[in-house]
């Protein structure tokens, strides 16, 4: 077990290192420089040269990379060029917003997806099952950003039920009671989180249905039925517990999907999170921010899949660490 953990950790570090290296090289090779993103204004070349020297951009790329890694070793992510403040601060503003969005979406995804999939399996090949299957297939085929736009059009622009974007109401005064702030935040959260969660739930339901069908075919289910348990107990207690195992793996795999979706949904709803930060940073050639977001995203994904493996082993005693 310990060896397995160590090897897993080493592999994770290697992956993160590879991601950081790749994104560092790619963004530095991109045409355009951080201090002259557009060429609409003439800037004194001497000023630009001074700025480049100050941030070490006049050095050869390998030297810059070693310096960056050195700073990273001390936990220093560098300074953001476009925001004129430490990258860590920019991330500290954006990451909680993305976590709030992705976390809520994941909750919607799992609750809705697992319930639907389990219900479908208990009614397999009947009309309800076929109807839900058609619905999940449709949702599964939607471009996330398009669904976001359509929901925005219907509930924001036409019905005026929900705000059309942003994370808080700009006119809400700071002295308003806490409950008002909470309600405001929730109102802004509903559309983005639902968009992301519902599309994810469609995929989850498809997997859960298959896992449940497999579980329902096993001997212990027959035993449970034979001993006279109600069908409801058999499905929702005995079979579901066993069909939840694949779901654990899926949560680990859901992270890349949620992060990708977050980039798009954040763009549509002007949600100030990691996705928007990354897109803006790439456009502005803000090297340190781009590398830092790539670092963070890969750390999240690698941690997610490792946690899923550990949980799986904890939940299913038949699965043991290889080479343990």
């Amino acid at each position, binding site marked *: 077990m310990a060896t397995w953990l160590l090897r897993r950790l080493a*592999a994770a570090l*290697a*992956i993160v290192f*590879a*991601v950081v290296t*790749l*994104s560092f090289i*790619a*963004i530095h*090779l*991109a*045409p*355009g420089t951080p201090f002259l993103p557009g060429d609409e204004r003439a800037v004194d070349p001497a000023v630009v040269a001074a700025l480049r020297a100050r941030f070490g951009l006049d050095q050869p790329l390998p030297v810059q990379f070693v310096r960056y890694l050195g700073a990273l070793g001390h936990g220093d992510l560098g300074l953001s060029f476009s925001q004129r403040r430490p990258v860590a601060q920019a991330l500290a503003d954006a990451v909680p917003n993305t976590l709030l969005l992705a976390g809520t979406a994941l909750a919607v995804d799992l609750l809705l997806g697992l319930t639907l999939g389990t219900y479908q399996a208990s009614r397999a090949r009947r009309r309800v099952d*076929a109807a839900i299957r*058609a619905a999940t*297939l*449709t949702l*599964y*085929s*939607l*471009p*996330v*950003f*398009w669904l976001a*736009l*359509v929901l*925005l*059009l219907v509930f924001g*622009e036409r019905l005026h039920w929900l705000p059309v974007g942003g994370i808080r109401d700009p006119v809400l005064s700071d002295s308003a009671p806490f409950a008002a702030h909470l309600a405001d935040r929730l109102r802004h959260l509903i559309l983005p989180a639902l968009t992301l969660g519902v599309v994810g739930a469609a995929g989850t339901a*498809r*997997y859960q*249905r*298959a896992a449940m*069908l*497999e579980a329902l075919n096993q001997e212990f289910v027959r035993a449970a039925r034979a001993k006279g348990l109600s069908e409801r107990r058999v499905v929702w207690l005995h079979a579901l517990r066993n069909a939840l195992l694949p779901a654990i793996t899926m949560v680990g795999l859901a992270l*890349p*999907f949620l*992060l*990708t979706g977050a*980039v*798009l949904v954040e*763009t*549509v709803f002007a949600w100030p999170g990691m996705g928007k930060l*990354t*897109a803006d940073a*790439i*456009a502005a*050639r803000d090297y340190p921010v*781009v590398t830092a*977001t*790539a670092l963070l*995203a*890969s750390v999240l*994904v*690698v941690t997610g*899949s490792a946690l899923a493996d550990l949980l799986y082993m904890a939940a299913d005693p038949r699965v043991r660490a290889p080479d343990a």
Partner: protein
Amino acid sequence: MSGARWFAVLAVIAWSALAALVLRQRFERRGADHRGPGRRFVRARGTLIAVGILVFFATVALVAPLLTPYRPSLQLDIVRLQNAPPSWGHPLGTDLYSRDTWSRIAYGARVSLSVGTLAMLLAATLGALVGAAAGYFRRWTDAVLMRLVDVGLAIPRIFILLVAAALTTHLPLATLVLMLGLTSWFATSRLVRAEVLSIRERDFVASARALGGGAWRVIFRHVLPNVAAPLIVSMALGIAQVMLLEAALSFLGVGVQPPTPSWGNMIAEGRDQLATAPWTTIFPGLAIVLVVMALNTVADALRDALDPRQETP
């Protein structure tokens, strides 16, 4: 839009329905193999409609000039035809620059479908080769290749693509296809590797090797043909995934560059007129949804037909 164009569009719809019916006839006629995969495929729910939709959009892409009254980038009348709602003359309305939305969707089908198909072909080839090599040679080849795949799967693809797209200021379509293809093969290679691991232990592989077949000859002649079924299914799903990804990139402004129409960048351009001219956003989105849904349906039906042991997830 003139009467002749309307007639041509109706003809394409009729042709698509006919193609789907002929397909069913091919597998349902008397004397056909009643338990064969072809029959299971055409009998699956929604397959025929899905095939019809795919034939329709593929035909539209092929004969776009015959079905559309205007060139996709033609600005008709910037004063009077800006954001005009759907009408007989412009069945799907016009956009901010007074361009005909139907014409742009038809020409956009060329871009979106060919980018999706080509990128998927590249990805499937790479995935099959890498997966076969890893599964067949085992040892360090396997270790190296699969760690590479781990890296590929660990990064949300959109981050790689966003950074890669920043490399060039004006992205040629060929580069976009290359980028999408090179980042879409990871899952396929895992799938192929898993299949190859079990196939390589079978007797016919051993006998092919005993007869002196070289490694790659054995892989191409004896191993890969047996991976065809899961590979075909993953290719159908692959086009759908790549099309969604291309749309997402174009939506973020780093994919297909305007004025070349793609369904993704049409949504991006319509976005700012969402409240006043929703048709410029809704229709290209519907086109994506229809095609992706049809591809997913076909993939599901293929999986059920080719591998009856495995229930569709």
